């Protein structure tokens, strides 16, 4: 007996469920945006500049003592926390006023504190104000550019309603993921941008699979009402959508648990993004098409001209 996450021939009324899913998403998106603009994200040194030092001490570290010793250095905001174990300490120092050179003195001054102790400097990262500004800009451009590029690709492959729907769906995922960063105050770094872009890729992947089925069904069932047709398409792809999410989540959870502290927030963001991405491709992607007034006849006539060859063969 094989494992089925979703029984065959489900008939869930997803279009009706949009009365729940739309308001839910709107609330989450607004909450995320409000959080983003009021509380703000916990930007890491990649975007804010500053210094990160990870040290391994001989035996359990006395965080309080380290904190008070660092306090004497007058480095502004200094955070000290355990990082994976009681002998593994992460120190974050905010960007120092006074340009690039000022950042460099932070590390040497912190080194003097631990000079006499048997401390292993496992990681030192210093990002000066110039580079952090550039990285922030590059990150924003990357997210924007990939959304745009994908928009054009889907527009080219489908109707414009699909492209807009896909972008709205993806924007929903990205914004809510950013909301998670705000809520948990996760360190937002360059790898977080990588995580966001991966979520974009995954979410679109999911959405495209659903849209692909909708397009196919639009051609096949020209008489069906749009609501009925969308419901059917989602139900048909439901098994695949959940299967893929489960395998991907299995892999990511393994990475989260066993992959080490360094990439934990990166993996956490991806896990969350994939859950949201799966939710949105089931509950939002198709309903958006109704909202955007997709008309079955408009689409099928265009596609009939374009893709008569392969289509005719496949249905023969």
């Amino acid at each position, binding site marked *: 007996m094989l494992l089925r996450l979703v029984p065959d021939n489900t008939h869930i009324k997803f279009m009706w469920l949009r009365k729940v899913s739309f308001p839910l998403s709107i609330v989450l998106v607004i909450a995320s945006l409000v959080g983003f603009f009021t509380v703000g994200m916990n930007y890491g040194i990649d975007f804010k500049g500053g210094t990160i030092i990870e040290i391994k001490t001989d035996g359990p570290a006395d965080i309080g003592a380290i904190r008070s010793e660092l306090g004497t250095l007058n480095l502004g905001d200094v955070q000290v926390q355990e990082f994976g174990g009681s002998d593994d300490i992460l120190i974050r120092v905010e960007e120092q006023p006074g340009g690039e050179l000022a950042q460099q003195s932070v590390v040497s001054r912190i080194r003097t504190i631990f000079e006499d102790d048997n401390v292993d400097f496992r990681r030192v990262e*210093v990002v000066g104000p110039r580079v952090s500004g550039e990285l922030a800009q590059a990150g924003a451009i*990357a997210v924007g550019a990939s959304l745009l*590029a994908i928009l054009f690709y889907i527009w080219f492959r489908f109707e414009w309603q699909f492209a807009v729907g896909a972008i709205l769906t993806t924007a929903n995922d990205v914004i809510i993921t950013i909301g998670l960063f705000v809520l948990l105050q996760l360190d937002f770094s360059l790898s977080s941008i990588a995580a966001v872009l991966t979520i974009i890729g995954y979410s679109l992947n999911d959405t495209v699979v659903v849209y692909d089925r909708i397009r196919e069904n639009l051609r096949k069932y020209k008489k069906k009402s749009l609501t009925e047709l969308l419901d059917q398409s989602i139900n048909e792809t439901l098994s*695949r959508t959940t299967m893929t999410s489960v395998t991907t989540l299995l892999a990511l959870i393994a*990475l989260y648990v066993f*992959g080490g502290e360094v990439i934990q927030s990166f993996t956490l963001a991806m896990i969350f993004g994939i859950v949201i991405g799966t939710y949105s491709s089931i509950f939002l992607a198709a309903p958006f098409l109704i909202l955007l007034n997709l008309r079955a006849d408009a689409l099928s006539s265009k596609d009939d001209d374009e893709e008569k060859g392969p289509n005719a063969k496949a249905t023969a």
Partner: protein
Amino acid sequence: MLHFARWKIALIVLVVAAGFLMTLPNFFSAKQLESWPDFLPKNQMVLGLDLQGGAYLLYEVDKDDYVEKRMQGLVSDIRTTLREDPRIGYTGLGVQGESAQVRIRDLTRLDEAEERLQPLVNPLVSNLFGGQPVNEFDLIVNDDGLVRFTYSEEGLDNRLTYIVQQAIEVIRNRLDELGTTEPNIQRQGTDRILVEAPGEGDPERLKDIIGETAQLTFHMVDQSMSGEQALQARPPVGTVVKMSVDDPPFPYLLEEAPLLSGEDLVDAQVSFDQRNNEPVVNFRFNQSGARKFALITQQNVNRPFAIVLDDEVISAPVIREPITGGSGQISGNFTVEGANDLAILLRAGALPAKLTVLEERSIGPGLGADSIEAGKLASIIAGTAVIVFMILAYGRFGIIADLALMSNIFLIFGALTVLQATLTLPGIAGIVLTIGMAVDANVLIFERIREESRAGRSVISAIDAGYSRALGTILDANITTLIAAVILFQLGSGPVRGFAVTLAIGIFTTVFSAFTFSRLLVAIWIRRRRPSKLPI
């Protein structure tokens, strides 16, 4: 979709085997690989700095500092030029912002002054366009007698290009002297230099060595007044006050023009002073330097001269007797490491301009090793979880998907090894993500096959339709992810780039393994078993 030509089968098997073969060396130590026969591939994956430990340093040439220094040099050239016989009267000579300017007193001699100063614009050979020569400076002459030199845009670019090249050369020399293994030093943008030193355990020392300008000069000490007096009053024309490295620093009044500089050195070594056993640096001049040095010491017996490193006086010994051998000694309260570093810097040469650290990331070898271990463990667990899940969900077809997944992983590692792409920690995350998503292609196909079968098709026809109908969907879905990966690669530096690379490679291998390898396995299974019922 289930018929394969023989050559196609051969090709698919060949590709998968190649992936396996290319991955193989990564399981062995470098020593074991040495004993392998030559026809087997021996390349191993390139590990990023975050996995093998090392230092990543991004430097920028301090443009302002360079321009200021260059303008100061220009001011002294202008002075010499205008003082030549017949002397042209001037006033207000100095550096003004980013330009050097002077006012000619006698407006009737303005043309003459311009003609004489013209060569100072310093024509540069421009290799970029080959044709029009470019001047380093623009010369602007106002009717009211104001003459101003400013950097021309091409001139500054040209100089920066040259300086960055030279600085890279010097940094390479220094790292070679330090014994850093396989450093990667490259230019970034117009005025930046990236230094990557894998396995470097002590980035502080690395930074000390790279960041030092190491401009060594020898000056005569001016004895017309003491250093303190010169600090109070104005130092005489042609002299400057420089402070010593001592604590507290002591002022010396020096002749501005250096007698000799670090460029005249051919060698520098650490040794120990026989009297007090303190470390000192012995140096040797080249031929012309030695001749000059001999002449100077002959003429200035019993006068002090100063050895100046980066604007600080290291020592100012008195010349006891003429030194004709062309070698000398710098003593100055060095520690052994300090003396050693100075010797390295003197041998490697001076940086043409000051460098500023913009970004520094260094990972200790311990953390790198931990990350590799964690990455390995996570990949194995992720792989096992997915493999078991696929068998539970799709039975026999799940095994086929799993075989395709394994071939996929070999192909990813093989491609990374062949391309010598750098594997980073986020790169490992990319591979784990691919493990999860790789089965997606198979899931799409299998779900499609289930559907087609439910719609009443025969086994073979359902499988056939499943593959051909899922193709378009899979391509669309993967191209969108590929777009994100490509943009990520464009944006990324170091680790993020590693993630983009593995993600992109994973997309290609996934589509390949789903559409060729897994399909081939299905075709073979059907031919052998001739099933009448679909096992999924």
